[in-house]
């Protein structure tokens, strides 16, 4: 299997056997080789790709997903890239180019046609890659096989983070992307030393956390300011903890406040400030200690769009202008555009349990344009990655550690939203780019993903390469009237949703056709965390009631078998 082969390959790479790895890949059938290659961490892929003979690279490149190929190609020097593309089989090459979105296509054709390597985009990147290969930068943080499981009240365990390797190098902004509840914050807490991993270890400068005192700061989504302290006192808190004396403390706090644009607000209390101003205080408090690594947990999520954009710009100004001594920024976000806008490197987390799905560099310079070709290509790529579970490109999780799950997580979406999505797709001729839809509806990935997942689960749509497409049953659903829709929804739900099947058959078999919901809660408790159980039950009730599978008696928290005459009443 390619999983064991990938393991083998990685062991070889770990011992520095790049040439042996190349030799192994050369011996394999190209599709198997491409598969194996894809299952390695991106950092390794990048270095290995540079070492591949041009022929092999040209053979493998068209087999990878096109956006991945695009990214990999741009990790080469420009000459190398052109050489690889020219070596590709002409049919495969044109297929690859055809698949690219317009902007990316334009860029790569430009690059191929113009022959002066000066001032090129990819050139800059290839230098940095060469640097890395020549003298691997000592990482500040290194996480080795860290994982996290939480104790449930009933004594069981929930694995939230699968064994993960990760390192944070100086000089970069790393963005950690993932849907909410995937474990981003948990990972951040482990890296910053706030919580200990259940297994594995986190090293700062090569030393375990018990022996070192990491110089880290966190900016929280909820700001986490002390409301009874003034702005100035809040910023002084960490300085006071380090024993900085009054005069010096005052001076440093004021300086930091000025640098984030809070001059004149020193004596205000946080509750007198707007959200944006409060987060500035959050930044000032974090920056006051001149942290080596600045962690940020969705720092802009609680702010309105304009304020967030403004604050991002100011942060980048501080960072790019080297006005802060911070060596590295670790940004947790569920906003894809934010990640592509700010980060030098993006790590995408999958969920249940979280593992690294992809880890790649964003190789174009700051400041970035939101509507530039490369920007859109990356946004598109990440959307695709996140909507397609099989695209996993992260390090393989040890198979025996996977949590057994007989239940599939019910995506938290209302039937009305599902119907809305299906209708929209139908209006668009049955097929559309997910990224476009999200943009059009002004929805964040977090909002739209559960709806797409739900529609997929009910097999109203199928998603492929980030496009979503109506199935025939989806089309029928979109065009049906309300009562037919209910019947179709019921059929789809009973065919695909285990929980609803169970509820239905339990109700059928009970003589009084009624059932306490608590029972199903208990069953789910064994598989999911409390919040998730709550959400799933809520979703199941919504779907079941919409599809007339059952009625719900909220007074007694019981399910009743649906009786049409009663419901019509």
């Amino acid at each position, binding site marked *: 299997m390619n999983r064991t082969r990938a393991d083998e390959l990685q062991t070889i790479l770990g011992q520095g056997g790049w040439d042996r790895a190349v030799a192994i890949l050369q011996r394999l059938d190209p599709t198997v080789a491409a598969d194996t290659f894809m299952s390695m961490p991106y950092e390794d892929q990048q270095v290995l790709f540079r070492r591949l003979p041009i022929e092999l690279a040209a053979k493998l490149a068209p087999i990878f997903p096109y956006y991945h190929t695009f990214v990999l190609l741009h990790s080469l020097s420009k000459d190398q890239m052109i050489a690889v593309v020219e070596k590709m089989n002409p049919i495969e090459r044109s297929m690859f180019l055809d698949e690219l979105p317009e902007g990316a296509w334009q860029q790569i054709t430009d690059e191929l046609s113009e022959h002066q390597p000066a001032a090129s985009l990819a050139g800059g990147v290839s230098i940095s890659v060469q640097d890395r290969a020549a003298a691997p930068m000592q990482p500040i943080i290194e996480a080795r096989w860290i994982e996290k499981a939480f104790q449930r009240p009933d004594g069981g365990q929930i694995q939230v983070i699968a064994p993960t390797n990760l390192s944070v190098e100086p000089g970069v902004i790393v963005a950690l992307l993932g849907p909410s509840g995937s474990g981003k914050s948990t990972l951040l807490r482990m890296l910053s030393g706030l919580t200990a991993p259940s297994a594995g270890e986190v090293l700062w400068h090569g030393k375990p956390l018990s022996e070192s005192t990491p110089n880290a700061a966190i900016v929280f989504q909820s700001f*986490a300011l002390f409301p009874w302290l003034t702005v100035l006192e809040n910023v002084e808190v960490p300085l006071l903890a380090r*024993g900085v004396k009054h005069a010096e403390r005052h001076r440093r706090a004021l300086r930091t406040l000025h640098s984030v644009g809070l001059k004149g607000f020193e004596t205000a209390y946080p*509750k007198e400030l707007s959200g944006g101003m409060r987060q500035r205080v959050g930044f000032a408090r974090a920056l006051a200690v001149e942290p080596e690594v600045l962690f940020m947990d969705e720092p802009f999520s609680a702010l309105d769009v304009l304020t967030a954009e403004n604050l991002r710009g100011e942060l980048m100004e501080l960072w790019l202008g080297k006005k802060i001594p911070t060596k590295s920024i670790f940004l947790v976000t569920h906003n894809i555009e934010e990640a592509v806008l700010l980060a030098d490197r993006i790590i995408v987390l999958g969920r249940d349990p979280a593992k690294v799905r992809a880890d790649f560099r964003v190789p174009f310079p700051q400041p970035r344009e939101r509507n530039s070709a490369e920007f859109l290509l990356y946004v598109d790529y990440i959307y695709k990655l996140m909507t397609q579970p099989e695209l996993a490109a992260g390090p393989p999780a040890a198979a025996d550690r996977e949590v057994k799950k007989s239940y599939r997580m019910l995506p938290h979406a209302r039937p009305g939203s599902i119907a809305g999505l299906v209708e929209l797709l139908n209006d668009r001729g049955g097929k559309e780019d997910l990224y476009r839809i999200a943009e059009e509806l002004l929805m964040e990935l977090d909002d739209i993903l559960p709806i797409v997942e739900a529609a997929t689960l009910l097999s109203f749509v199928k998603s492929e390469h980030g496009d979503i497409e109506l199935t025939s049953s989806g089309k029928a659903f979109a065009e049906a009237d309300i009562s037919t829709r209910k019947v179709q929804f019921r059929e789809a739900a009973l065919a695909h949703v285990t929980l609803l099947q169970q509820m239905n058959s339990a109700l059928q078999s009970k003589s009084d056709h009624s059932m306490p919901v608590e029972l199903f809660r208990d069953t789910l408790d064994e598989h999911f965390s409390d919040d998730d159980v709550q959400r799933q039950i809520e979703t199941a009730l919504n779907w079941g009631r919409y599809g007339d599978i059952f009625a719900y008696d909220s007074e007694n928290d019981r399910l009743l078998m649906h009786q049409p005459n009663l419901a019509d009443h």
Partner: protein
Amino acid sequence: MALFYGLLSLARYWTAPVNTQANIDLNPSALPAYALFSVARIAVAYFLSLAVSVIYGYVAANSAKAERLMIPLLDTLQSIPVLCFLPGVMISMVALFPTTQLGVELGSILLIFTGQVWNMAFSVYSSLKSIPREMLEAARLYRLSWWQKLVQLELPHMAIGLIWNSMMSVAGGWFALMVCEMFVLGNRDLRLPGLGSYLQTASNAGATRSIVWGLIAMVAVIILIDQLVWRPIIAWSEKFKFEQVEASESPGSPVLNFLRRSKLLSRIASVSVAPAREALTLYFARGDAVPQAAHHERNLAKWTSWILAALATGGVLYAVGKMGLMLTSLARSDLRDIFWGAGATFLRIELTLVLAALWTIPVGVFIGLRPKLSAIAQPMAQIAASIPAPALFPIVLLLLIRVGGGLGIASIVLLLLGTQWYILFNVIAGASAIPSDLKEVCETFHLSKIQRWRKLILPAIFPYLITGFVTASGGAWNASIIAEYFRFRNQTFSITGLGAVISRATDAGNFPVLLGATIVISAMVVTVNRLIWRRLYTLASTRFKLEFT
């Protein structure tokens, strides 16, 4: 100067020999001194409770092991009526200090303390437990010393809850104090000079003028404390509120404004408090920078906690053994008395609650639905409720004996006096919280009066009503101890009940019965709380919550 003189005379009085025949001066001019005595007792007991509750709550919230033991204990202790302990505490304190007044004084302070401390400790504990996770994480990440964390995060976060609970506790303290001040042990009159004994003596003598003066003094003291202490503190504590936006109107206090404007005070603060705080925080911040010491300390702390736990377990086992031995000497007739008494008291209390509900629900709803009326009625009811019921007992008794009702009726009136207010307040609060759009919906649907009560009003006030009942039932058990057995003008009145059993046993010095009855009453209160009130409470907070989501 006045303060100093007051302290001095208090000290002189405490070390004076015990006076077995308390001489209470009925002249109104003696009232300020009595009021001072009463307030001093409350104050000492309160500061003691404050210190203990902060420590108790802090330990319980910070140690998972201690938490498992301390919280159920707290929960139980909180529901045991404090007056159960009155005879035991007094007897042991007088035995400890047989020659000075200090024993009786300490006894009363200990008792008030016992009545005050548990809900305050619980408030500290739950405030500490509810500090937002990210604030705690910020504190950990920036390595705040335990001291800085306490001063900048934990104390501010617990302030509001602690202040409200302090107010409730002090109100409860007055209740206990009145009883203590009137306490008579067998043939020894252990009454303490204070407002309580003044009122009791006045009723005994039938001196109406003195009774009126005494009541006026009582109300004046309570209002003064409210205005001079609680209002300023509440206004000051506004800054610890956790809200995200600034409230449009916040409670003000002229006293606080005056203190804030005082130049002298701010000068004093800037040369004393601020530097001390700075020095302490810096001291602990540096101490924290050495990780090795922490390890050593943790070992030490572990050992200390083991030794403490062992000692505590030993003590508890010893006490339980002793009590077991004592209980074996109970005669069968004693047991029968206790259980009959328990049943009678239980029924009497439930009857009282029903009677209280019967008048408070309609009146409370009537007031609560009319905002203008409740603006007037609420403060008045608050003043009425702030007079501790035991202070009124002698007066009520005096009246009832004049009109010729027996103690059977008197005891229920007494219980009512101690309980009805809690229900009334909660009903008013519940009714005034009914959103006006719901009221309008009822109008538009032309619901009949009965339907309106069934569909809107009763469900809406239900959670509040339950809260009121829980508090009232606790208060009723407490009051039952003194409401069933009364000495009045050298006559003894008593009816069947657990409270009477306890009081009689106290008078007779019958310790096994006292112990047995105390255990039974505690067990009953805890059981009733667990089986009835807690369930209703959960029901109320889930089913009947007015939610708009």
